């Protein structure tokens, strides 16, 4: 067995790990930081065009080998496990939560308040936007306060988005461009977006991904990265509730130990709770940081309803397919009104697919296919989606599934989302509210709702180690420090009490940057 010592050991290699490592290395230059990631490093930026081409032409995975066979959660939404994590694939959307997200109990009598003020979080939103490189424009809503402008101007609207914005605005719902971690000018050593339309793998590097941060930190020798090393258990000191080691297994199957003064679990919404549960011992029989049985509880995310709406506009799909519009009008809800909060998004969409036979069964070839397609789908199509706020029950949980084990014999996680009673009670009225908005939008420009469907999973998931003041109802404080172990932190997605009603990554990063300051306070400035 090999042993590695450092001052800080970060477990996980995704976006929050990258931000934690970067900021810690700035706050405490010279501090030794080891990052341990189960997946591999995919640092071959020079091959991204090749991977992109294979994805476009054959549907191949643009991040080859970004998963570990047999290491997957039942109920997870992504299998990605690599240095960079899910933010290798992400679309770069960087929406902020609103004050209401953090004040559910005090404003609406629902679920719980977050143990942090929005004004405090806002400072870190600005920092997150600066570090990730976010382009965005001002909000038309005064409630969307900002203390600093976006680092970059918003991406220009395409022909299609300009038409869609005109259409959306006619409903009295102001839309704006969605803020994204995509460069609109050269920024932080990366070029401006070239509108390649394949943000799943950005071949130019204009969209932020954590591999850039790790490569820079490694080049500057500010971190040590051990990839393809799975941490299986955290171990405590014999007498104190202090974490002293992380036990893992490396790519060769050899056992490896990491010893550090502070441990930061930055393993995302699935693997953070999973590791704490796997780390059960005689003093913490339900897992570390789990004296009050809160680890793996309150798994959250937001639900969504989507509609395809045909309109009298010349909408051309593919102009910048992952770029869309957002309205934050429904982020706010008067406490005197029935509770419903959601974002509202619009993207360009394709029309019907061409067909090889008409309704009578006559085979179509050549120009007849084109004529048939144009006759069937002469108008533009908008994809409209609302991510709406739902609150988890305590039993919305991640558990260890003894029936599914990895090759090391560890039970794999099973996630089952359950909503609290108040959320269930307002389900029909929420659905009707969103449907009425789709109908309101379809009243303009001869709109016709083609179809409406609901997501059958919770998107942008989080939770499992929620932060709070009361140790009986939470796993960690608002810095991510676990209530039970002074030197053990959990950062990012797992700490969120709720997932709000829009993409969570910027919030994960903002909270992590705040946690980094607290971790740094444990170490003297050199």
């Amino acid at each position, binding site marked *: 067995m090999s042993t590695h010592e450092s001052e800080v050991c970060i477990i996980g290699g995704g976006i929050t790990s990258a931000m934690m490592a970067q900021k810690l290395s700035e706050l405490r230059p010279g501090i030794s930081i080891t990052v341990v990631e189960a997946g591999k490093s995919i640092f071959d930026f020079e091959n991204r065009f090749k991977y992109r081409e294979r994805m476009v032409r054959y549907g191949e995975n643009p991040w080859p080998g970004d998963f570990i066979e047999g290491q997957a959660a039942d109920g997870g939404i992504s299998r990605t496990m690599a240095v960079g994590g899910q933010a290798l694939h992400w679309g770069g959307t960087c929406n902020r939560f609103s004050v209401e997200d953090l004040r559910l109990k005090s404003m609406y009598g629902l679920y719980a308040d977050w143990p942090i003020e929005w004004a405090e979080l806002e400072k870190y939103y600005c920092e997150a936007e600066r570090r990730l490189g976010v382009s965005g424009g001002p909000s038309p809503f005064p409630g969307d306060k900002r203390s600093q402008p976006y680092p970059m101007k918003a991406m220009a609207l395409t*022909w299609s988005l300009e038409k869609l914005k005109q259409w959306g605005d006619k409903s009295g719902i102001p839309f704006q461009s969605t803020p994204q971690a995509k460069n609109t000018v050269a920024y932080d050593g990366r070029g401006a977006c*070239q509108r390649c339309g394949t943000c799943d793998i950005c071949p130019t590097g204009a969209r932020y991904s954590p591999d850039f941060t790790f490569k820079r930190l490694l080049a500057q020798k500010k971190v040590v990265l051990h990839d393809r090393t799975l941490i299986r258990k955290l171990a405590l000191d014999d007498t104190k509730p202090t974490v002293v080691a992380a036990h893992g297994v490396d790519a060769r199957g050899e056992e490896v130990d990491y010893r550090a003064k502070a441990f930061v679990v930055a393993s995302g919404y699935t693997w953070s709770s999973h590791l704490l549960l796997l780390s059960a011992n005689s003093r913490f029989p339900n897992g570390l940081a789990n004296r009050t049985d809160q680890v793996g509880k309150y798994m959250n995310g937001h639900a969504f309803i989507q509609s395809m709406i045909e309109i009298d506009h010349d909408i051309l799909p593919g102009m910048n397919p992952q770029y869309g519009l957002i309205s934050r009008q429904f982020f706010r809800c008067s406490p005197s009104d029935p509770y419903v909060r959601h974002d509202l998004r619009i993207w360009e969409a394709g029309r019907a697919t061409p067909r090889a036979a008409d309704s009578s069964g006559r085979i179509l070839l050549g120009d007849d296919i084109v004529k048939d397609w144009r006759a069937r789908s002469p108008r533009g199509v908008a994809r409209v989606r609302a991510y709406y706020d739902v609150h988890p029950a305590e039993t919305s949980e991640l558990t260890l599934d003894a029936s599914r084990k990895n090759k090391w014999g560890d039970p794999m996680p099973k996630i089952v989302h359950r909503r609290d009673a108040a959320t269930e009670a307002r389900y029909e009225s929420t659905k009707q509210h969103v449907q009425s908005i789709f109908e309101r939008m379809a009243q303009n420009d001869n709109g016709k709702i083609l179809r409406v469907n609901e997501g059958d999973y919770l998107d942008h998931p989080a939770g499992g180690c929620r932060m709070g003041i009361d140790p009986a109802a939470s796993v960690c404080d608002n810095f991510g420090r676990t209530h039970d172990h002074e030197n053990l932190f959990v950062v990012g997605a797992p700490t969120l009490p709720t997932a709000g009603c829009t993409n969570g990554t910027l919030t994960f990063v903002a909270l992590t940057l705040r946690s980094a300051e607290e971790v740094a306070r444990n170490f003297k400035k050199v």
Partner: protein
Amino acid sequence: MQRRSFFQRIPVAVAAVFAPRWARAQPIDQPIHELASVVLPASFGRERTDIVAADFLVWIRDYKPGAEVGSGYGHPRTQVTGPSPAAHYAEQLSALGSPISKEAVEKALAAAKVDRIPPRPNGRHVAADLLAFFFASAEGEDLLYDAAIRRDDCRGLENSGPRPARFS
């Protein structure tokens, strides 16, 4: 077709001509070109259907069975590409006779119960697969929308505001 797009496709066709002999010598090479001239829009012109045919042959040659594919989002699954869809192309092309007629293709597609163009070539019939290859491509979409969107090009942020030029 935009001049620029057309010239962008030429290297593909040239690459096919200068491909290794084993690839050039595919017995399906000439019939695929002939089939393309029958099933692809005539308004596209023979020169351009030849370029699509050559690109399709390159696509077939470079297809990798068993390659990882995107696992999807929401309900991820480990998936790989299936066997090459081209396994029966030679016999399917042969059954179409020579010269390939529109009627022969219609009969073959009806017999293969092809009523929709698959999202990607799937091996059910070479004619349907050629249509799938073309209409799923950036050029195929540009033809349908009559706009040089150039979906697969890295086009820069400038000039994304105006409507793309007509494709035809």
